[in-house]
């Protein structure tokens, strides 16, 4: 049998590990929940390095999909939320779960599809393209399929918004309207692979697309349409509602992200790995008006 001595030794290790993990928590630490599309590009690792070097604040970043990220924020398990889903941001703020809401960068979603473009949508607007995909898909055209994340992520919310703008009721007209509309319920990377295998159209964020580009046959069919705007925001969790959350360090981090130094990192990121910058920082004087309609000034 296992020697009591060994068991004792291992238990001693456990206690030490518990104490050490307890001590780590004592250092200034900022807990951040983020959507996967922001993390998967590698941007946050670069930000983490730069910020920890400058301030010594430990950034604890957990990236688990928008729905989970919002839930973590709503429960006060993190101090800061990084998100790209405007309707949910508004709901979060009006529920008073957030103290400050600042947008900091944007890029565009891409509508990807097979290079032959079987639905012939490349010269249409995003709304026009969605309407045509719906028409062809429903009529049973075997070459037209659409893959959806179907996971209520920020990207999925953006897709739902475009269906609505195109005049459809998402739940009754699009979901379950036929075999042409495929819901994966998975992350962006996995969904891209499904779309690629099925030669389908798909809405994707720029970062994940570029990361997967070499593995994909699909190409961007429509890009930089205003409807495809993808705005990223930071929300400081309200310590008044969630005891023990660290709004001071969260505020400092957001202000750094909005500073010239933060913008510099956002502007230059992606040039080496992807050949083109992935994010454009939002500037005061521009972010307040359409289509951004958000606040990007420093938090007082």
């Amino acid at each position, binding site marked *: 049998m296992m020697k009591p001595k060994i068991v004792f030794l291992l238990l001693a290790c456990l206690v030490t590990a*518990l104490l050490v993990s307890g001590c780590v928590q004592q250092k200034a630490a900022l807990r951040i929940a983020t959507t996967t599309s922001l993390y*998967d590009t590698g941007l946050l690792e670069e930000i983490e390095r730069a910020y920890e070097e400058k301030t010594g604040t430990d950034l604890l970043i957990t990236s688990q999909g928008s729905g989970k990220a919002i839930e973590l924020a709503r429960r006060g*398990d993190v101090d800061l939320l990084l998100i790209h889903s405007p309707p949910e941001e508004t709901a979060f703020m009006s529920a008073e779960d957030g103290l400050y809401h600042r947008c900091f960068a944007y890029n565009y979603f891409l509508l990807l599809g097979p290079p032959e473009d079987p639905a012939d949508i490349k010269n249409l607007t995003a709304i026009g393209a969605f309407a045509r995909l719906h028409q062809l898909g429903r009529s049973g055209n075997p070459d037209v399929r659409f893959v959806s994340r179907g996971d209520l992520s920020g990207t999925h919310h953006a897709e739902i918004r475009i269906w609505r703008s195109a005049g459809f009721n998402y739940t009754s007209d699009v979901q379950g309207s036929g075999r042409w509309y495929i819901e994966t319920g998975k992350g962006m990377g996995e969904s891209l692979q499904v779309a690629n295998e099925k030669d389908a159209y798909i809405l994707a964020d720029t970062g994940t697309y570029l*990361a997967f580009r070499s593995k994909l046959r699909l190409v961007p069919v429509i890009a930089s349409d205003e409807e495809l705007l993808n705005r990223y925001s930071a929300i400081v969790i309200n310590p008044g509602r969630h005891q023990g959350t660290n709004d001071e360090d969260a505020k400092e981090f957001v202000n750094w992200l909005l500073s010239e130094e933060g913008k510099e990192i956002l502007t230059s990121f992606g040039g080496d790995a992807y050949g083109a910058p992935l994010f454009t920082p939002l500037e005061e004087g521009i972010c307040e008006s359409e289509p951004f309609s958000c606040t990007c000034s420093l938090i007082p």
Partner: protein
Amino acid sequence: MNEIVEGFIEAIRLIVTLDPEVLEITVRSLVISLIATVLSAAVSIPLGSLLYLREFPGKGAVIGVIQTLYSLPTVIAGLFIFLLLSNAGPFGFLRLLFTPAGMVIAQTVLILPITTGLTIAALSGIGREVRDTLLSLGATEYQSILAILGEARFAICSALLLGFGRAISEVGAAMIVGGNIRGQTRILTTAISLETSIGNFSLSIALGIILLLLALGVNLSLALLGRWHH
């Protein structure tokens, strides 16, 4: 297919160069799952012995529940612990969410049914007459339990190995409770999940190979320990 070959090459490269980040993740995986296994052994060996030896009403039902929990989905185990450890949960004040200690708790809960159930099965394999003989020869009950546990040690060790295997290979609970935070709670399985979602397939496969090598190492050490013991 290329990814698989590249995965093997990448695994060799990561191991030979002792890549510091991979090393850190590997050690963390090992330590967390080992502690979870030892904790569950500390609970399940006495508990399993007790359940085996004592007769009480509803014993069959208890064992039935334990065996059903073999199928506990890892995400559900993780979600359960998450809800307890979350800031909004009853144990939020302990601040264990997103810490290795929280992950140890989740993995322990996850494998406890397996180690307990298989301990009972291991003891059942020895047979009641051994105990009766021991008692008739004048052994105390405590001495007889130790003797039976000694006889069943190989089966119990393999129960613990199975528990360890489930702990080190699961990703659902580690992701929810640990959060896959770089430098804090990232372990091999959550790193594999992340790299796969980013499209770094060969790195994922390399990390998978390292995980299996780790399991091989644990199995070999246990086998050596057994031999040295004799």
